[in-house]
Structures are given as C-alpha cells and as structure tokens.
C-alpha cells in the first residue's frame, strides 16, 4: 500500500486556559490515502475547522502527531520541518471565501502559487493557464476576482490549490457561498482532482445533498472523529 497523504494520531487541541478553556479536539485519529476524496461532516462548533487547520499547519495542536506524505511534520506544537516550505510543496487550500487575492487576475492568482515555489514566471504562467482550462475557467483568466461569479472564483481557487501538485488538498466549506447546482459542480471537481491527480482531498461540508461524491465520510462530534458507513442516511443535523 502506498504512503498515506496524511496521518493524524491522537490529536488534541485546547484553546485558551483556565476559565476560558475550550477543548476543540478531544482525541482525533485519521488516515487518508492519495487519490481519495473524503467528506468531513459535523455540527457547528464540533471542531472540523480546527482539525483542518491543524493539518494545514497553520494552527498547531496541543498534542498528537501529524504526518503528511510520509513525513512527520508536527509533534504537538513542535515543528519538525519548516512549515511554510512544507505547505508550499505539499499542500493545497480552498476556503469558503477570501480565497483569491483581489488585485491579481484569475491567472495571476494561480501563477503566484507557482512563483512562490520558485517556478520561473513564464513556465508558471503557462501552467496556470493549463490548470484554468482544466477547470473550465480559462475564458476568465484575465479577469479580476470581483468580475467572477462565486463558482468561478472557487474553480480558480481549486486551480491554485492544484498548482504545485500537492499530495493533500484541504477545503473548508468551499461550497457554502454557492447555490446547490454550482456547489455540486465544485464538489465533483474535488472528486475528479483526487482521482485524476492522485491527491488526497479532505472537504468539510454541511451540504448533505452532495455526499455521494465522496469515497469516505468522517463525522466529527464533540472533538472526536468517527467513520460513517456510506450507505447509512444522515444521523443528525
């Protein structure tokens, strides 16, 4: 079996201390293979974003280990590698909003992700254009984000997430601002990306109508993760 895209064991995250202490993640363990698209469900405040940002290496856990693509990167809050360099090379991100830099065109938003990873400008431009075409937004390449629809913006964000051929793509409620039809298109895109580009994909979502696109579904409740069988209908919320 190939190396998993991400492995998380006994993750715990406590915000604040004393009176204001909040245990956001109690004890979370998960493993996701490359080429696999996984949905993450759970009620509001259950800790989904906290888990995702911990894996994104921008919100260090209180304890527990995270390995990405076979490399141990975090042991509790301890950084085992240069996190920013690691994000650049191995991770892609899509969020609900504020995904794109407003003063760059669609093309430049993708290009910048390649350039920060030392891809020469011309090559970065060509590759960015390829990715926009792959995601069917090539026609809008020279538009600023304000001129794009929500769905188009998310496609550009997905293109940017794919730019450096990451082993793991993390998406937090990427379709929350979209209508159901466009939301579904974006979700299908994640499945396509995972399968065609051999990346592990974790998508946090509240939208139960699109669960069929996922290979696996994880349910977060009260800071714990449990696997939900695909056939079973939604239990709550």
């Amino acid at each position, binding site marked *: 079996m190939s190396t998993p895209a991400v492995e998380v064991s006994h993750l715990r995250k406590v915000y604040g201390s004393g009176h204001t202490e909040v245990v956001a993640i109690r004890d979370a363990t998960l493993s996701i293979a490359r080429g696999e698209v996984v949905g993450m469900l759970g009620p509001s405040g259950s800790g989904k974003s906290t888990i995702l940002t911990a894996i994104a290496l921008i919100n260090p856990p209180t304890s527990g280990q995270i390995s990405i693509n076979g490399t141990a990167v975090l042991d509790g809050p301890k950084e085992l590698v240069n996190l920013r360099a690691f994000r650049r090379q191995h991770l892609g991100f899509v969020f609900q909003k*504020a995904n794109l830099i407003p003063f760059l065109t669609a093309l430049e938003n993708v290009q910048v992700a390649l350039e920060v990873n030392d891809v020469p400008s011309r090559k970065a431009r060509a590759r960015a254009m390829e990715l926009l075409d792959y995601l069917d937004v090539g026609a809008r390449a020279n538009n600023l984000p304000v001129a794009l629809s929500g769905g188009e913006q998310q496609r550009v964000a997905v293109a940017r997430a794919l730019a450096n051929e990451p082993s793991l793509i993390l998406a937090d409620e990427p379709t929350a601002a979209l209508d159901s039809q466009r939301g579904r298109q974006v979700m299908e895109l994640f499945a396509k990306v995972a399968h065609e580009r051999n990346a592990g994909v974790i998508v946090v979502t509240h939208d139960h109508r699109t669960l069929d696109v996922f290979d696996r579904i994880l349910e977060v409740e009260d800071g714990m993760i449990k696997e939900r069988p695909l056939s079973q209908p939604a239990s709550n919320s």
Partner: protein
Amino acid sequence: MNLAVRDIRHNAGRFVFTTVGIGLLLMVVMGMGGIYRGLIHEATLLVNRIGADLWVVQGSTRGPFAEVSRLPGNLEDRVRAVPGVAKARRFVSHTVQREHQGKPLRIVMQGLSWPEDRGEWIPLISGRMLNQAHFEMIADVSLGLALGEKVHLGQDAYEVVGLTRGMVGSSGDGLGFFTVSDAQRIQFDTPGEAVRIERAARRERLAKTDIGRLQPVLLDRANGTSQSIPALAKPQVSAVLVTLAAGASAADVRANLAAWPDVTVYTTQEQRDLLVSGMVDKARRQLGLFRVLLLIISTVIIALIIYTLTLDKVRDIALLKLIGARNHVIGGLILQQSLIMGAAGYGIAWWLGRYAFPRFPRLVVIENEDLVSLAFIVLGISTLASVLGIWKALRVEPNTVLAA
C-alpha cells in the same frame, strides 16, 4: 510577476493622490536647496564679476557687504601710489528704496569709478555702458525698468541706458549702476533747508565763542558751500578696488597696504568667504532645518500610507503565507511599494520644479550633485518608511485568512 505594482494599480487613486503630495513636499525640499545655492550665487555675484584683485576697506571692518565700511575718497590716490597696483577704483554700494510710478523701487546702487570704470565688465543684455559722468544708469531687468526710461532719484532724473539680467544683491534686489558721484548724490542728497540750518548753527556757535568774535574770517567759512561744512561734507566711499599690474605679486601689494593702520585688505576669495560664512549662513541653517522637517514629514506620510495599504492587505498577506510565500516576497512587496512611491514623488518634484522654480521670487539654482544626493536621501526615507508596514506584514499569521 510583480505583486507591488499590481496592488498599486488596484489602489491607484489613493496611491496617486499620496504620491502627488509627496512630490510637492519633495519639490519644496529641492527648491529650498536651490534657494540656498541661489543665495550664495547672488551674494557673491558682484564680487565675482567686478574683477578686483584686492579689496581695501575701512580698518578692522569686514565691509563693504557684510558691514559698513567708510573710507575717505582720496584713499584711491594713495592706493594708486603703491608699487604693483595697476588700477584703483572707488566702490560705493548701498540700497535705496524710493518710489517710481507709485510703486516702491528697491535698488542696490553701485557706484562706478567714472571715468576709469564705465561698466565694461557688466554683462549687458541690451543697451550700452555709461557714456557720461552724470544722469545715466544701468539697471537689472528685475527692477522692471525699460531702456530709455527716466527714473527720478533725489533731485535728478536718471536715464536707463543699459540692462542686465540676474545681477542682484545679496538681498535679491536688482543692482543699479551709476557713477560714484551720482550714487553719492542720490544717497546723500542734502536739502537746502539742512544746509541753511547747519550754517545758522555754525554762526551761532561762533558768535558765542571768543575765537569767533576775534576771527571774523571764520564766519565767512561758516557761510561757505555745503561741501566745506564738515557735518555735510562729501560722503566717503565704501571700498577701493585694486587691480594688480601684470606680474605683480598679490602678497607683496597686500603686505604693503596692510601696513597702513587705517585700512584692511581682502582678496576676492576672502570677500566671498565673508559673504558666505556671515550673511548667508543663517539662511542656510534655516533652510536646512526646513528641509530636514519636510523630509521627516514625507517619511511619516509614506510610512502611514504604506502601513494603511498593508493593513488593507492583511488577509492577502495571510493567504500568501498560507500558500507558502517566503518572508522576503512579502517584505519585498511592501518595500517596493514604498520605493515606487518615493521614486515617483521624486520624479514629480523634479518635473514640477522645472516649471515652478523659475517663478520663485528668489533665484533657485539646482545643481546636479544636489539632485543626486536628494535621490539617495529619498531612497533612504522610502526604505525607512516601509519598516512599519513590513513589521506588520511579517507578524500576520497565515490563519488570519480564516477570520471572518
């Protein structure tokens, strides 16, 4: 791909507005430096042009420009007798403010030692040098007089026969060249009443003293011409200008003259130094202070606008960090914006200055070396101004992207 330029384009209005402001400030900084140069130029103009080798002035004074110097008119003849002196000229310089066609007219009057000096050395833009001993003048265009115009000064009218450009005194007022006797006549014009009163006073004094009663001839003297009344005696000259004979040693001539207890001798270079270190120095310090203050203000303005632009970009910076941009990419973005603002401001200052400086009331002289040093200073202040923004940007956490 240059992020700095793209962000500026996105915030073009704010950026352009601020940059124009910075440009105006830098133009004033540039102009003040130019005014200082202009002050030196104007203060030393006459000394440089008049073509004297040595300046003989009143003993232990630093005249005739930096302070008042008075010498007897006949000193000229004594100086002429010194070996090595080819020419000696009387020099008279004073400022008058009179009225001409209902407007105040300030003239820095220069007396030319007629007939030896007819103003051959004066660079004329039109007209001619002085042709007669009286009632002619050469005026600078800044006085606003036209060729052939007659100006009433004192009891006489003087005709403008020649015009110069840029010949002004250290106060910035235009020079007017007259013969020495005309210049003195204008300055020391004595009304008849003054002469009569002084005569009466003398007669009274004599009548009260024994000697006056015993020597009636003294009474005759008291009734004589105004020239012979000491209180109204012909005024003295400011300096005597020496032109050395070919091959004569300036040091020898100077040593000879310096032995006279009633005069002090300066070389042309020493006159220049007296003007620059004395009269212009305070102006230089004042202008320098203003320049420093304006540069500080420019720095603060650039720093604030760059900081505000950075605050507006906090989420974008967080996003860049999230996708792994290195610190130098983010710091560089802000530093470049600051430098672009400084450079554009400098360009605007230079461009505006070309139109504005010639319209300044005082002469503005912009030297290339001043432009270069100001460019480096602007480089420095722009870099300094970016520090605040860079400091903010480097502290942005990547997870700020997620904050609502």
